């Protein structure tokens, strides 16, 4: 621990890390704030489309549709999980589960 430290490589500049982390979190929170009901609205619409094409009442599949947005590293992942009820089996050749990235 002396003035020799002056000639060594500096440690990772934490202020730079702070700025980068804030840039990501702030831009993410701003988009979420400007569209707070986006996910709910999307969920409702997906629900109605499934109900329409499979001919099942929406209330029966309501709890089987899950829409989530998750952050994984530098990417945002839109995750869509649909579990179809027994009655839909006749309409489709096999059970469908979709995941979109």
């Amino acid at each position, binding site marked *: *621990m*002396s*003035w020799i*430290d*002056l000639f060594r490589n*500096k440690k990772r*500049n*934490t*202020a*730079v890390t*702070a*700025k980068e*982390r*804030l*840039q990501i*979190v*702030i831009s993410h*929170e*701003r988009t979420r*704030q400007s569209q707070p009901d986006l996910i709910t609205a999307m969920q409702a619409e997906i629900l109605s489309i499934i109900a329409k094409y499979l001919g099942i009442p929406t209330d029966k599949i309501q709890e089987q549709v899950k829409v989530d947005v998750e952050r994984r590293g530098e990417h945002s992942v839109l995750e869509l999980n649909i579990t179809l009820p027994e009655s839909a089996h006749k309409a489709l050749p096999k059970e469908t589960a979709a995941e979109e990235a």
Partner: protein
Amino acid sequence: MAEVIVVTSGKGGVGKTTSSAALGTGLALKGYRTVVVDFDVGLRNLDLIMGCERRVVYDLVNVVKKEANLNQALIKDKRLEELYILPASQTRDKDALDIDGVARVIEELKAANFDYIICDSPAGIEKGALMALYFADRAIVVTNPEVSSVRDSDRILGILASKSKRAEEKLEPIREHLLVTRYSPTRVERGDMLALSDIEELLAIPLLGVIPESLAVLRASNSGIPVTFDQESDAGQAYLDAVDRFLGHKVPLRFVNTKKRTLLQRLFKAKEGAAA
């Protein structure tokens, strides 16, 4: 015409009350009739920072609830002719305020010929904070060069743009000002603290001023004398500069760079820094 100014931040402990007192004092020093209103119901502290804690009889909640009139609750500063304080209640909770009551108090203050009505917001984004910002024409967002403070300031900017009276009634938006407090150029230079330019870039609102980390602020609050009165001090001068900018004057920034040192002093400092 009176202007309503909210001093806000989201995060606690960044210097809202210190800044409210210092800026209010600065405006009064310039001859503007100014009142500082403490919205931190239940945790009042403005009285202590302004040194009038023993003169509080009635408070904001009393006026909102019509238990006292405005003149009974207003405390006139002993040092400045044009400076007044409206303290918060110590005993009640934040729900003691309601929007209609606060609207009436603001109207009464405007009728009492104040030029500036400064609303010192409590921390958080709950009712007390929303009440403090609802009627604002201008907002001073107090931010420390630190991650949680910057993030919370951004949240508060979102709330100013959506939950204020001006936003709800689709009037001209609140004029926002950034006030960076507890700034340490030495730490910025070392790469340990967010730089002013980083904060400005992240929050993207016009800069009102930078208050350096200063012993003068602690001394001022110890003695109940707003730091603006200490015009020898860096922080006192920085607040006065901010007041000038608030009034529309162009004033160069001070206290944002480290003092230039000789090579010997620099080596000595580096050694000291390594030992710490």
